[in-house]
């Protein structure tokens, strides 16, 4: 915990000084913040799919729900100070609640059926965003939602990345986390061993979707513009790729894969000559194919950096 905290503080201080002294241009700064957001989003899916084995294709929908719910509040009451924490809470709770409610019927399904059901849910939500202007014009519908205040900064992103990392690690190395890993490994046996599988599946789905919602809030208040296509089905696939690329059930993997992925998609924009920019979408699928051929378990497999392992008191029980 202390090591992780210390590392986060050091990275924060380095980035803060780079930002303050203008060593990273505003576009670069935006990419750095975006990386943190992607991390939170993908860690949510890693909890659902990587650790608990529930194949969800609707993760972008929860990201969107968080983004739109939070943005609507801050747009409606821009001068009300307490709106930032309040809207954050709403962005966290609405996707969690929706996940909880649809999770109960949907998580009864086994993996491939679950994928189709969550895919359907994702499409429904995207159509909802397309037509949201019927609800209130402020949501913008298919023309996109404009005029969201910019609240997301380095500090907010860091606080939430830190909390997410610590909470996920603490959860995984508790009886709750072990129950999740067990039900991923063998659901029937987990049930016979006293794990209330349904309860834990719903828990992981609710938590993971809440994290997606949180990431959505940060996204909305970073770019100050939302469009339904930001939350379509393909975005769910992107998230899935990050989790698989990094290694299912590895916190370290998701963190590194988020950085790699954002760099490939956004970072290469500044490095590649303009006539090669669209090649990014060739480069990264090729990378994925290579990856699946050479290392199907992802960059890290299930391995964790020391920071994300079960803490030192566990090591003291060397037998």
């Amino acid at each position, binding site marked *: 915990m202390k090591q992780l905290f210390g590392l986060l503080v050091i990275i924060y201080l380095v980035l803060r000084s780079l930002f303050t002294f203008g060593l990273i241009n505003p576009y670069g700064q935006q990419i750095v913040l975006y990386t943190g957001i992607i991390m939170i989003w993908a860690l949510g899916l890693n909890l659902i799919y990587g650790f608990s084995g529930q194949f969800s294709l609707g993760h972008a929908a929860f990201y969107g729900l968080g983004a739109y719910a939070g943005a609507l509040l801050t747009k409606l009451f821009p001068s009300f100070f307490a709106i930032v924490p309040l809207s954050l809470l709403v962005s966290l709770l609405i996707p969690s609640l929706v996940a909880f409610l649809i999770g109960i019927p949907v998580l009864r399904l086994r993996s491939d059926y679950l994928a189709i059901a969550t895919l359907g849910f994702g499409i429904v939500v995207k159509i909802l965003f397309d037509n949201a202007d019927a609800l209130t014009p402020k949501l913008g519908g298919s023309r996109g939602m404009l005029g969201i205040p910019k609240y997301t900064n380095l500090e907010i992103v860091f606080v939430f990345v830190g909390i997410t990392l610590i909470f996920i690690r603490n959860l995984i190395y508790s009886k709750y986390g072990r129950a999740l*890993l067990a039900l991923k490994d063998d659901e029937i*046996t987990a049930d016979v061993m*006293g794990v209330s599988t349904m309860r834990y599946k719903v828990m992981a789905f609710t938590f993971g979707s809440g994290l997606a919602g949180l990431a959505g809030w940060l996204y909305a208040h970073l770019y100050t513009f939302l469009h339904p296509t930001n939350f379509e089905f393909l975005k769910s696939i992107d998230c899935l790729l990050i989790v698989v690329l990094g290694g299912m059930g590895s916190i370290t993997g998701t963190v590194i894969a988020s950085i790699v992925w954002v760099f490939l998609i956004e970072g290469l924009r500044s490095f590649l000559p303009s006539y090669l920019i669209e090649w990014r979408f060739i480069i990264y699928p090729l990378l994925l194919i290579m990856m699946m051929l050479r290392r199907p378990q992802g960059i890290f497999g299930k391995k964790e950096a020391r920071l994300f392992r079960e803490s030192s008191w566990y090591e003291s029980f060397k037998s």
Partner: protein
Amino acid sequence: MSLLRVRDLHKNFGGLKAVNSFFLNISPGEFVGLIGPNGAGKTTVFNLLTGIYKPDRGEIIFEGEEITGLSPHRITQKGMSRTFQGIRLFKEMTVLDNIRTAYHPHIQYSLPDALFRTKAFRRKEEEAMEYLISLAKIFKLEKWLKAEARSLPYGEQRKVEIVRALVARPKLLLLDEPSCGMNPREVSELMELLTYVKERYSLTVFLIEHRMPVVMGISERIVVMDFGEIIAEGRPEEVRENPRVIEAYLGKSEWQS
């Protein structure tokens, strides 16, 4: 009062009567064997008792409480745990995490305790760890604790399964062919261990076993099944002499009839 009472249990798969009118009473502290040829329905009985299958008809009473149709984890938490015929460990988890998972209903802290790593969390986890390690030592598994379950030799995996069933703190332990795939020496070691464990944790054991000598040596009472029905029941020496049992195992010869 009997620990387990099963009345008129039925289970069909399509047209196949896998279990047909199964009755059973097990008193606390008994060691009961369940034998029968392949496909007799023994494992189906276990799956019905532990809630993996729902019976078509009949009732299962455990400690005076009806548990028919409850989900497996509820039944386990009431004090019935089992091992599986083909080993079903959590393959990708360590041996320690396998048994810690089964122990989880007995580790009591809340979700916030876990998320914030409170004192209560640490204390309970450490207590659990000490208990589980001491148990692993009884089975001489301590050197495997941090190994992935699937990396263990077959016989050791069996032992891990038994330990995993034990940490759920059962009153009734169901063992589905625990000696399957073991050599004679391993089998006799296992049987000694089982007798020890039964006394030590004052368990009641219900054992499916294929090998007649093994089950005859260890059980106080034996139930014999064939084609989903009970064909004989009694003390080992009675069952051994029973013509219907001999017929089920060896077949009926032409000249005898």
